[in-house]
């Protein structure tokens, strides 16, 4: 590439492969038993040039026949129907993953323009638009990736990470207004900023080394490649991130969806551990 971005502000760089052990376990507890429970779960690691998976296993309890299908991005997911009464629904996966230093993922077959369309979750309010205008008058024109990294810095400077300050359906605009959020909101804001600037951006759900739960970050499309940015930690996604689902926003990559007919209270215990294994 002629105008390869400069990563002087990268927190770290490394060229060696990393080997990781992934354990992902979700336990949903209902206060009363449910039945005829239709579900749809992301329990497959995506095909990727940058990592190889061995020793992969997954489980669903109560034990149940799971079918698999692929979504519009070609990502595999599991779905099924648990008929019997159950008050605990548990699923997860474990895998050993070898990851190459990755930066600049090749494009998918879908048209890139769909990652430019604003939606309810990534739409910005006037405050977000004001941020945007601040970026849009730089002294020298920036390469879109540098611009995106600048936007990421801006988010970090203006937003506080505050657990519980938002929920799964909080739009980016609301998070900007209150100045706080979690990784999902940080990602939505960055996506909103990039799209408004004409840079295709998408949401990634997955795992980060050391995190106890699932994590969300962003990919932006520049000069024919996808680049990962983590606005929560204000850094580029090079190592230590394993994606599970990609899509236009959080709803598009939800890791689980379930439907049953009764009204119950549900508590979810998610544990995700991604640990680097020394060879």
């Amino acid at each position: 590439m002629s105008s390869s971005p400069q990563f002087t502000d990268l927190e770290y760089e490394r060229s060696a492969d990393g080997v990781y052990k992934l354990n992902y376990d979700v336990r949903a507890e209902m206060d009363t038993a449910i039945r005829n429970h239709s579900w749809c779960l992301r329990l497959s690691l995506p095909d990727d040039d940058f990592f190889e998976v061995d020793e992969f296993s997954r489980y669903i309890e109560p034990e149940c026949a799971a079918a698999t299908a692929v979504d519009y991005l070609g990502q595999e997911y599991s779905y099924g129907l648990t008929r019997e009464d159950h008050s605990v629904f548990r699923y997860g996966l474990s895998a050993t993953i070898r990851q190459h230093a990755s930066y600049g993922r090749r494009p998918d077959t879908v048209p890139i323009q769909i990652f430019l369309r604003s939606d309810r979750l990534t739409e910005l309010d006037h405050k977000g638009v004001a941020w945007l205008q601040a970026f849009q008058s730089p002294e020298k024109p920036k390469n879109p990736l540098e611009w995106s990294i600048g936007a990421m810095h801006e988010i970090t400077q203006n937003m506080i990470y505050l657990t519980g300050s938002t929920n799964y359906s909080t739009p980016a605009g609301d998070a900007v207004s209150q100045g706080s959020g979690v990784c999902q909101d940080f990602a939505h804001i960055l996506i909103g900023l990039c799209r408004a600037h004409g840079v295709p951006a998408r949401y990634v759900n997955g795992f980060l080394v050391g995190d106890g739960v699932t994590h969300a970050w962003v990919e932006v499309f520049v000069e024919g490649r996808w680049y990962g940015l983590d606005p929560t930690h204000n850094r580029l996604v090079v190592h230590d991130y394993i994606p599970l689902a990609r899509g236009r926003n959080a709803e598009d990559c939800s890791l689980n969806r379930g439907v049953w007919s009764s009204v119950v209270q549900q508590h979810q215990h998610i544990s995700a551990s991604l640990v680097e294994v020394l060879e």
Partner: protein
Amino acid sequence: MQKTQQRGHSRRERGGYVVLEPDGGAGKNREFKLGYSDLDRLKAYLNRYAITFGLFQDNTFEDRLFPFGTVPRVIGPWEFDTLEKGLRQRVHALNLFLLDIYHERKVLKDKIIPEEFVFSCPAYLPEVYGLRPPADVYAHLSGIDLVQAADGTWYILEDNLRVPSGASYPLIAREAYHTVCPNLISDMPVRESRDYPQMLGRVMEDVNPGGISVVLSPGRYNAAFFEHSYLAEKMGVPLVFGSDLEVDGEYLYFKDVGGHRARVGAVYRRLSDEYLDPMVFEPDSIIGVPNIMSVYRKGNVSIVNAVGNGIADDKGIYYFVPALIKYYLGEEAILRNAPTYLPFFERDRKHVLQNPTCVPMFCTEKT
């Protein structure tokens, strides 16, 4: 066209209406008298069978009798044939557009439509990428709105390719005439229209990969619930709600009360895309069928109409339909769009700004 052929099909007289049948140039007009008592009977007929549409007003639901203009509007055979030809052409082109826009997108590469009109439209659904509906049919049923101008010209007002509604009412009207004033129909060379449910049934059979066909209704409080139940009865297929169906593994099933189940191969759905599958679209939808998109994607069930059709009847795309007909079929459009100006284009913008009488009729959907 001669003036008498376009207007004056009916005129009011003391004691009743006179209906004139235009002769199509073959001879003198025939006439048939429809008395006031017949009009009362026609209304009573609709009431007897509850030919209604649902209406929510002030938070209460009401089934209202379908308002029915009892004096038939006569469309002459030559006129009807032109309309039929023009509508077939239009729907054919729109179907080819849908196939193209979700696969190769040649229409964008050839710059027939500016790509932002497609990609910024919420009705364009990436969720159906990689999915090819049986027989490449997207628009199994189309509701194309027509309007006739004062000079007799027919214009296309809009296209409806998602969940068109209303086919049952003319069928019921025809049945009512057959019962109340049979001579009106049998003495005149009126074309049969009541085979619509059979045609729809055949379409469903043609695209059905195996199993029964069903009509999927969003519920009793849908405005068109009468139609759902009526068409199900006429086609002889079950009328179902989302909860009557289940996806298990590779297939969609109808759950019978006896404990067994039957595979469903074709779903004539009367709910919109966003409520169809809570696993893919609106997560809070309780009227859809969880995971139906998974088996649809695998080709194990047909959804009628196809998912994602909204892009073809979008108000922004309407402007380009004559160009799409030319592009896909190499033909001139037989039926014309109502005159429309799109300020997106310089020439149209000028026209709109210079003509203060130009009022916005509709705008493209919010993006």
